[in-house]
Structure formats: C-alpha cells, structure tokens
C-alpha cells in the first residue's frame, strides 16, 4: 500500500476544510439536527455514486441514473397504489415494491450494459439515450404531473426515511452499508480487480482471461441496483414522483466520484473517496443555505468550481508520480 499521498488524502482534507467553513459560517451548522440531515441527504447521491464508482473504474459512464431513479420511483408508487386493493398488509406491499424496484434497477442496468458491450455503442450514447427514455416514461406515467403515493402506505413507508437507529437516520445506515460492501467488492474481490483491469486496458484484460463484456455489464447492473436502493429510501421522503424527480443526479454522482479521486478514464477507483465526495457536495449546498454571503442559487456554480479544482489537483498529483 502506498503511503498517505495527496491523491488519497486530498478529498478528506477538502472535507475537513468545507466542514470548518460550515462551522465558521453559522452556529446552527453543528446542531445534531442539521448534521444528521446532511448525512441523510447525502445518502441518495452517495449510494448512486458508489455504483458510478464501479462503472467509471471499469472505463464506462452512466448518464441515465437520475432518470432511472425517477422511473423506478414512479413504478414503485404505481405498484404500491395498485396493490392497495388486493393486499391488506402495508408492510407486505412495501416489501413487494422494494423487490420490484431492485429488479427494475438490475434490468435497467443490464440493458445499459448489453447495449454497450454487445451492440458496441459508446456508453455515453447508450446512457444518454436511456436517460431520455426513462425521463420521458415517468413523465408519461404521471401524465405530465405528479404521481403521489397513497397516504396510508406513505405513513408506514415514511419510517424508512425518517426512522432513526442509534441516533442516525436509516438512510445513513444504508449508505454506510452500501459503502462497506462496495469497498470490499472493489478492493478485495476478483470482480473488483477485474474492474480495475478492464478500466486500465481492455485488451490486457481480455488477454488475461477476463470476460470484459461480463465485467462491464455487471458494473452497469450494480449501478442499477444502487439507483434502486437510493430510490427505495428516497420515495418515502416525498411520497411522490414526477418528471422533475432525480434531475441532475447523474452529474452530482459523477462529480462525487471525481472529487473522490476516481479517474474518469477508468482504471482507478476509490469508494471512500466517493463517499467523501458525496458528503462535500451536500455540505456545500447546506452551507449555502445557512449563509447569506453567497446566494443559494449559486449552489451549482460552487459545485462546478469544486469539481474542476479537484480534477486539477488530481492531475497535478498525477504528474508528480
């Protein structure tokens, strides 16, 4: 293992800096309510970004995650509302919806994967296409408006987002679990090694007896499942889905991955970096909310600057190697 270098420590240092800025800006920042709110909100993008870490490490890109989240939300809501008439147990309905959600996520990922590997279309184009398709499908399903979850189910389901365990909201625990599993999968298993190898050089991977297509497809499926998990904890938050759900998630997820030190051209990925990247993005939004110095409307601009600076620093560190 290499010693602590700027590449590894950079995102963590940045997180500390942003955190200190937060403390300086407003006393309310350190309140336990605010902190757990930050953690819970960062979990959506964070979980999606962990999936994206695999896709990007293996040399791909998935732009469809935001639309996919909206589409899965829509499907879950429609399914749960429909099951109200036939099944009495709210919990059973929710569990069925969760299973369906995971299935849709996996299949959506599989489609992205097969189109890139078997049909040999660039991932950027494939996922740009599916992005449009899912976005349009959810708008169609909602008839241009909003799909709302039945209140009775919503009350039961809201526990998944608002419930607390050991002082932390459930979404934070889910985020943590996904991160730990992601870390183990990427760094300690054959599949993880294969992701690194495929992203570094597909030809070498092929000649090393790695089934490149299968590895790439698996990363897209993993991404789909992550989107589905994020959706499962997102739906009870608002209890609705529309054409506006999950907008720009793909860019925030990719930004979190890049800030975390994963290389966009593939071959090198870091799960903890991604987690930190997601936290930084959420923190910035939160701090802008708490201060008058910079308008909250400039959130996107600040995030954009952070991404560019992060990549600039990464490249610099790259050259010094």
């Amino acid at each position, binding site marked *: 293992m290499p010693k602590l270098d700027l590449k590894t420590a950079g995102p963590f240092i940045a997180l500390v800096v942003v955190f200190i800025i937060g403390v300086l800006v407003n006393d309310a920042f350190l309140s336990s309510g605010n902190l757990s709110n930050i953690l819970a909100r960062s979990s959506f993008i964070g979980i999606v970004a962990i999936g994206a870490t695999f896709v990007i490490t293996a040399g791909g890109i998935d732009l469809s995650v935001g639309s996919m989240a909206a589409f899965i939300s829509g499907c879950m809501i429609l399914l749960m509302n429909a099951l109200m008439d036939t099944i009495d147990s709210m919990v059973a309905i929710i569990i069925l919806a969760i299973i369906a959600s995971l299935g849709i996520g996996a299949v959506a990922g599989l489609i992205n994967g097969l189109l890139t590997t078997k049909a040999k279309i660039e991932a950027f184009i494939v996922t740009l296409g599916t992005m449009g398709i899912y976005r349009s499908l959810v708008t169609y399903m909602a008839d241009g408006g909003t799909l709302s979850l039945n209140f009775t189910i919503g009350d039961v389901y809201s526990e998944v987002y608002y419930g607390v365990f050991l002082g932390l909201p459930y979404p934070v625990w889910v985020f943590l679990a996904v991160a730990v599993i992601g870390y183990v999968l990427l760094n*300690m298993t*054959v599949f993880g090694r294969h992701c690194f190898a495929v992203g*570094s050089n597909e030809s070498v991977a092929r000649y090393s007896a790695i089934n490149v297509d299968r590895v790439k497809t698996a990363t897209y499926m993993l991404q789909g499942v992550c989107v589905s998990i994020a959706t499962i904890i997102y739906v009870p938050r608002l209890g609705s889905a529309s054409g506006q759900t999950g907008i720009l998630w793909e860019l925030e997820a990719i930004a979190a991955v890049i800030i975390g030190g994963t290389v966009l051209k593939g071959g090198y990925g870091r799960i903890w970096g991604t987690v930190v990247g997601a936290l930084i993005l959420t923190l910035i939004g939160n701090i802008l909310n708490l201060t008058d110095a910079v308008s909250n409307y400039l959130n996107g601009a600040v995030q954009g600057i952070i991404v560019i600076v992060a990549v600039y620093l990464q490249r610099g560190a790259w050259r010094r190697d």
Partner: protein
Amino acid sequence: MSDENSKSLTLSVRKLRKSFGPVEVLHGIDLTLRGGEVHAILGENGAGKSTLVKILAGFEQLTGGELRISDDSGNSKRIDVWNNAIAEQAGVVLIHQEFNLAEQLTVAENIFLGNEIKGRVFLDKKTMRSKAQEYLDILRSDIDPDASVDQLPVSAKQMVEIAKAQAKNARVLVLDEPTAVLTQQESQVLFELIDRFRKEGVAIVFISHKLDEIEQIADVITVLRDGELVGSYPAADLSKDDMARLMVGRELSSLFPEMPEVPVAAEIVLRVDNLLLQGNSAPSSFELRKGEVLGFSGLVGSGRTALMETVLGLRKEAKGNSGCVELRGERVDFKQLSTARDKGVAYLTKDRKDSGLLLGKGLTFNFSLFSLHKISKLLIDTKLEKIAFEKAIETFDIRMKDRSIAAGNLSGGNQQKLLLAKILEAEPSIIIIDEPTRGIDIGTKSQIYCFIAELVASGHSLILISSDITEVIGLSHRVAVMYHGEISGVLEGNEIEEHEIMRYATGLKNKLSYHDQLESGISNAKA
C-alpha cells in the same frame, strides 16, 4: 523543383547517443549516408536499428553526439534542432514498418497528406490527383489514385508510402523492414525501385533481417549490436556468414540450451484439425506432442497469431468452419480465454505493452491477474498472492528497484519475465508463446530460452511463434511455417534450416503435407 531534385545529400551522425530515461540504448554510433548509396543497417532485434532510424528521421531526439548535413558542394553544417518537420523539409523520409497512412482517405489524399496543394482558398484536388497519378506512373504502379487506402493490399500500401515520399521530394529514404510484409515478387519490384532511386542520387537506408536481400542490394553495411556500432563495411567485402557473425558476435549455438528429445510415442496433447480462420480460404491443421516445442515461423502477417488466437477463442473462427480442436483427445471449443486457461492452455501475447501488462498498475496486480481464481474464494487471499509473487521474482529473476513500482517502469526484459511469470502462475500444461524475445536484450533472451527448455523438460508442451528464425531453429523440435494464412509446411530434422524455412515462408515451396496426410489418413481409415 527540378534543381532540388538533382541535389544529393549526405547525412551523417557522430558519436550519437540515445537514452530513454536512465537507460542508454545507443552508445555512440557513427554513420554516414551518402546520396546514391544503399546503406543497409543490420542487427538483431533490440540492437537499436529502429531507434537509430527514428532519430535520423526526427521522430526521436538524440541525447548525445551530433548530426551533420552536407550538400553536393561539400558545405557541411551541424544540425542543432532536428525534428520530423525539419527532417522532411531537408528531404529525409522514413517509411515505417507499420505504415503511416490514413486508411479512410484515398491514395491521392494520402500522398499529399500534410503536404497539400492549395488553390486560392480550397485544396486543389485536381492538381493533387494528377500529380499523384504522375508519381504512381513513375513507380510503374497501376494503383488507382482514387482508391480508398483501406481497400489496398499491403504491397500497394507500401507503394503509396513511397509515392508519398516522392511527393515530399525525398533525398534520404529510410525503409524500416520494408520486405517483411511483401512476397518475393513484390520484394523484387521494390528492389528495382530502390535501384532507380539510387541512380537518381537518393540515399537509401534499408533495414532487413533477410541477409539475401542485403547481399543483393546494399552498397554499404553497418552492423549494430546491443546499441553499439560494430562497424561499417563495403557490402562487397562481407559474405552472409560474415554478416551473421558480426550481428550476433558469437557462435549462434551457444545461445540456446540443450533441448530434451521428444519420445517418439509422446502423446498428442493438442490437435487442430482443419480449422478455418476468418478471411482465409485454406484451413489449418497441426499437432502438438507432449514435451515438444513446435515452432511457428512465417513472415509478419502470415497468420500465425490469428491461428493461435482462433484456437484459444480470442478470435471467432470463420463462418462455416467445420474443423475442430482436440485437447488430449477430447474435443474442445474455447469460446473465451478463461475456458482455455482452466483447461491448462495459456497464451503469452506478443504485445507486451498493449495486451500483456497493465503498465500503470503494480507488479503484484499484474502478476496475479491471470490466476486470481487460484488464490481467492469469496475474497482474494493477498497473503498467498504475496508469497506467490516473491517466489516468482526468485524463479524468473525479475529485477526492480523496489516492489512498489508500476509495471511500466520495469525494463523491457523484466516486463517480459513478469509476463511469463503471470502466464505460468496459472499452471498451464500447454503454452503458446508469441514473440517471447521481441525487443529484449541478449542476456534476458538467453534466460528466457532456458525457461523454455526447463518447461519442456518438466513435461510442458510449447508452441513458439517467432519472427526470429534463429530462435525458432534453436528451440523447436519441429517447425510449422505459415504463408498467407495457411500452413505451407511442417519441417522436421534436417529440413529445419534458415533457407528452407524462408522458402516455405515466402510461398516458394508449399507441401501442405498435413492436409494431404490427413486426407490420405482419412481415406485409409475408410478403406
């Protein structure tokens, strides 16, 4: 224009040195190229020929010594800044081993690529087309200037390269292994051309491994060995034996270890029967026996790698293929390399940098990539991995500054040893080795030959693809020769000799013995 055409040029280098990072690959070379002379540069793989000509053509920068140009009137000047653009301006043109053509453009467009003739605003396509036709006529070539380059056969592509050199008004024409991809007849056409250029006062640098060709056309021969200048000699003073001796610098036999005999009754471990490759009409058949090294010789592009990659499932066989592959008598159809690996067949690629190693990744990462299944259940056992790697470092004598460097920072020889270690870690019993010593120093070469001998002695079976004929002769029990995608002969015993191999490799001889034998075998069986 015509004035310039008549001018000849002398290009010379003195005490030329070239280092890549800390490694010096050329150690003080003197060389003088005179107009009207064909200057052959001779040397083994890795002797530094390609680096030298790249420096002459300005693709690489020299790191020591000087470069001078003098014209007809004897004005000699030292060149301080030398890059590809300046070199071409001066009339020094290199024709690469792998051609440098834009495949999607037409012949005429390629000839004037980067050298376009402009009208007032737009390109003057008409003039370019008619000029291109002119150049092609001079070459007595019937290539259509409007043809798309990707549709042309290799020999025609080479013609286009030469026409392109003409368009640049070449005074020094450097040909890096131009005949490697040509048939005998095509080579003769090229030699006639070279002769004509010579008469026009062009200085020609000619790199080839084929001593016959050098004897035929060279005026001056410069021999390099391991980056050192052995000497420059008038071609008339050297016999082919002299050339080989100067090139190798020692008796050839000492380089190769004693190879154990293959028992007559040795089991056939791999049989390829009438396998049809993509883009080829004739099917291929061969057999590999236990404990044998079966050499595969042939010119570049003769289909050796394609054949092996098809056997291994890295390439699809041709549609309508009715042939098959048998492993120890059992019929197999590898759809992907992992299946082959799990059945004990491994392939060492010839492209160390492009498909062999992940240059940006660590040594252990690379080492275990092909055999991860051996050291992992749910998770990878990194302790086992480390132990195996340390053992491999010892066995294969992989030398490095420290364990944490990336594979790309190893020297070429050590990269090759790491690649060999990576492949053998999967414990294959049949190993297909493709160009195992390309671009490797002589010391590592002989180490690799020893590994090969040890593998065979311990019951492994090897297929050795190599463009280095001495290597094939020195290591193989039998030699299969390929020509234009088919096996033109399998040579045994006394037939394994350089000239005989070349005859099969160039299509002069073709026994297709396997095919016939198989057919007669089949008809015998029927009878």
